[in-house]
């Protein structure tokens, strides 16, 4: 997308002071849109590319006292906004044009927009506000998503601008992307964070909607290009939580990547984002899943870390260990 002020991206969040997606204190820019549909995804607002309105009924003041959204909505004759018990409870996604007028008028954030068009300059302004903190902590900027590379032209310009300002850059991506795009962007990236969700492509397809061939190929490419790399394994019950898969992953890292990864993080799955799903009128895909007791689950992760380490892989549990770059 181009505007008068240069290229625009759809950003659904900019979070300052993130400290676990790359080294030091970072500002993380979340770009909207993702080609994968991981069942455990905790950011459903990141899936679609365009802006969307989320509905949080319990924050609504009451249609009788307020009702601003109803007057603001240009489609209001069509009853696009649903109400029940005097509260706004949902939006007819078929009829809604995502004009965002309702959310703009809502004083209570009961209606909220996910996804804003922003120029590189606008994003840079937020990023640069924390540059002293990056310098003190060895931090920088992380681009995340969604899938960063769905908006790769925007990501490219933004990363270039970051490098021009001498900022450390990190990209968190599923790497389900054309390899030539990676080659174009990597010169402006200092660290890559990616996932290996499953070594078995059929399983991968079952839980994420895509196979893993392209992803594994891109991971190899990343190593070939000498990019510092952190691999994350979200350990999800009933998906990849078997020792066998962890062993296969370790073998891949040792044999195919020559163990040239800076860190492998095993992350415990958590049931998150269920409220966000309902605010967007989407069903939570892992609704019937019953979480295991936390302590049992963490012990399990610690065990899997040990298994990985036995292959010489620099595995750790979680994201609080220092990354050796």
């Amino acid at each position: 997308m181009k505007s008068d002020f240069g290229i625009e991206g759809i950003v659904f969040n900019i979070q300052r002071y993130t400290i676990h997606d790359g080294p030091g204190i970072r500002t993380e820019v979340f770009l909207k849109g993702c080609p994968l549909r991981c069942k455990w995804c905790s950011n459903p607002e990141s899936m679609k590319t365009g802006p969307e309105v989320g509905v949080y009924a319990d924050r609504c003041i009451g249609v009788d006292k307020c009702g601003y959204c109803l007057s603001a909505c240009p489609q209001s004759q069509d009853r696009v906004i649903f109400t029940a018990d005097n509260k706004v409870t949902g939006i007819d996604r078929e009829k809604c044009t995502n004009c965002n007028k309702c959310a703009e008028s809502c004083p209570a954030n009961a209606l909220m927009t996910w996804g804003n068009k922003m120029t590189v300059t606008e994003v840079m302004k937020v990023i640069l506000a924390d540059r002293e903190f990056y310098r003190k902590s060895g931090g920088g900027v992380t681009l995340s998503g969604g899938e960063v590379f769905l908006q790769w032209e925007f990501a490219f310009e933004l990363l270039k601008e970051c490098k021009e300002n001498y900022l450390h850059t990190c990209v968190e991506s599923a790497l389900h992307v054309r390899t030539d795009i990676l080659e174009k962007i990597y010169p402006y990236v200092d660290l890559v964070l990616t996932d290996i969700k499953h070594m078995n492509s059929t399983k991968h397809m079952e839980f994420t909607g895509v196979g893993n061939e392209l992803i594994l190929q891109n991971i190899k490419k990343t190593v070939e290009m000498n990019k510092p790399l952190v691999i994350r394994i979200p350990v999800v019950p009933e998906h990849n939580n078997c020792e066998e898969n962890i062993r296969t992953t370790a073998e891949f890292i040792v044999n195919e990547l020559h163990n040239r990864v800076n860190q492998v993080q095993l992350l415990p799955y958590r049931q998150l984002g269920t409220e966000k799903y309902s605010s967007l009128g989407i069903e939570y895909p892992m609704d019937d899943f019953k979480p295991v007791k936390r302590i049992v689950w963490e012990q399990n992760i610690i065990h899997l870390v040990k298994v990985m380490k036995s292959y010489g892989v620099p595995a750790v549990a979680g994201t609080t260990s220092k990354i050796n770059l």
Partner: protein
Amino acid sequence: MSAVEPYDKDWGVGVSGMVDNPSPFPRINNMLKWLDGFTAGVDHERACLVTEVYQKFSGKPQIVKCAEALSHVLRNITLQIQPNELIVGGLAAQPKSAPVFPEFSITWMLDEIKNNPWKNRTHDVHIMSEETEKNILELGEYWVGKTVEDLIKSTSTDEEAKGTSAGKGVFFLDLYTTGGIGHVCANYEKLFKLGFGGLKKKVEEKLASVDRSLPEDIKKRNFYQAQLIVLDASIKYIKRYALLAQEMAAKEQDKVRKNELLQIADNCAWVSENPPRTFWEAIQLYNIATNIILLESNGHSITYGRFDQLFYPFYKNDIDNKTTTREFVQELIENFFIKIHQLNKIRDVGNTIIATGVRMGGTALDVGGVDKYGRDATNDLSYMVLDAHAHTRIPNPWMAARVHANTPPEFKIKLFNVIRIGTGEPKILNDEVYIPAAMNYGRSLEDARDYVGVGCVEPDAAGKEYGWHDAAYFNMAKVLELAINDGRCVGCAANCPRWEICGSVGKRLGAQTGSLADFKSFDEVLDAYDKQMEYWCDRLVSCINIMDISHQQLKPLPYLSLLIDDCIEKGVDVSAGGAKYNFSGPQGVGTGSVADGLATIKQLVFEDKKVTGAELLKAVNDNWEGHEPLYALVNSDKIHHYGNDDNYADELASFALSTYCKHVEKRPNARGGMFMPGVYSVSINVLCGLFQNASIEGRKSYEPISDCLGPVHTYAGSHDISGPTAIANSVSKLDLVRVGNGTILNWKFTPTCLTGETGRDNLISVIDGFFEKKGMQSQFNVVSRKTLLAAQANPEKYKGLLVRVAGYSAYFVELSKELQDDLIGRTELSFD
């Protein structure tokens, strides 16, 4: 066992004081447990002794009377040496017992004994024997009409008092109206050099040189005579401890304890007159010499100064001569902390709102920082003092770590590891701002570099200053209310106690500065705030000067004057301007509230024109009832709010604060010194709120106003939503060097956010960055499970609470109930 811990010793995150036996020393753990068995109480002995003297010497010059009173106390008060202790001293026979000071005020005490007994308070409960009750009621009759409080109240006119808590609570003077001043740091260096004997010689020389024919010198003669009276009594007081230790040693069966008691006796006997020779002697003298300050006046925040600097020569000497071990020094420091923890002061129920659960309060002790020449002064003791807190986990002393551009990284790691424990101790003071702030009010470069943080955070030229650092709390948010409502309170009506003399007869509480309903531009709003501020600062200053004169007249402090330069030199009591530096420090409260109130007016009324000024005024007059959408809007992120690194609101915060400073700074005070504003609230933002109806930034009636330099939190939600770096940026845009009496910034982190080396190092980086940008002070709350539960119950109050979720951090209240439960259960074994 090495008692001196490695610099990177990790005590865990957010475990706070919830551990048994925190110290490696059994003696310390036993003392802590023993102390737990005592409840706070009140002791009448001091009050009885003082009253006897006042009755007997009623005709004597005031300063001599005060000296005789202290002398009588020191010679007769019951002493106690506690099991296990190596350092002796106390204020009353029972630990945690508060002596009574009828010289300052009595009315409230008599009233509360009769009508609201201390044992029935909801917080700050004190128990009292029947004998004590009877004694206080009896002696109380003598004091009614003769106290400092009586003099202050009878001197103030209604015009002056209408802003106080007796009126409409624009400012609060209660602390120094009902009690002593305190907020001072003695010149311990001088005491250690001369001892009481050396001081006595000095005073005698000065007395000998007085020219008795000069009228001025007659005052001086009285002053020196008073000092000699308290000096003799102090020497005697320490000797009484020596005697008691000897008696106890004679009876002691346990050989080890017997030897300890004999050593205590020797220490006391020696330091009663002579300069201390060892670390143990020095800390013994230090403890008792400070307690005497606390027996002379009940002013709190008697500061212990730069401990690591004061004691290093003794420590080094003992270690070099192999006469002690680091372990033993460590044990003595921890013992000393427990001694401080027993000090107590009884406050009236109103003042306990200001200072809930603080006991004595303000027992400040500093480590780290630069020396007089600007070089890093961190030494072994700086680390050992931090360890001592980790080993005791008690809220005393109030510790401050001074840091500067060249603070060693090891010290920061030690410091933040202690902070991560989650007790809230210590706070951090930034030398790079404190020193210029101290110089801005006329202190020399050397004295500024050697500052201590008195009480909460106030910069003070240790041993040379009488800073009146806690002179008042001033509600800037109330000033904004009056400014936009033509000088009237919001909700002005017949139920106001002042109605008959004010509203009903066409008058108003404040200056007539126009109404928001009529203002044509935002500049008129700013102008009204400025004028209203001037009006109230005039009254504030006059009230504080009245207090000052009253204290001078009735409660000179000949003992404290021995330990503050240049009182002896000048022959002038510290209460009357004898100190080298003299300040009066009232605190402005509500920076965030004023900033957000102004931003709301600017944005909604004058820019977006979404509401009229009249509508906004009506909404607050109606306590937002019937204005729900507007109430939600002003509390939402659609309005520019301070604390989000948003210049729009941050510039208004700057205006709010500097307007207050402008009308207070450098005005003359009653001791030949000047006024020096601070901007912090402790918890007085709660009290301020109780005097205020609803306000524009989205407060409902009686809700607290914003705290210290923090962003606004209302019942409807927190106004800061951009995380710690944004807060750091917002706060550092303020001109803090100008705020010579200090500022506070409270940080809240969840333990999960700070776990691991990354959690620790990133926290260090935030504060490093904040301080490089000229942030002045920081203190931390590493939030516990309990707080998370509270956050779950009242999510709107905890909007800014950043927590570590899975691969990322997020705001706790935005998480689902399940995840919140997950996080609550997560604190022990946490690695993501």
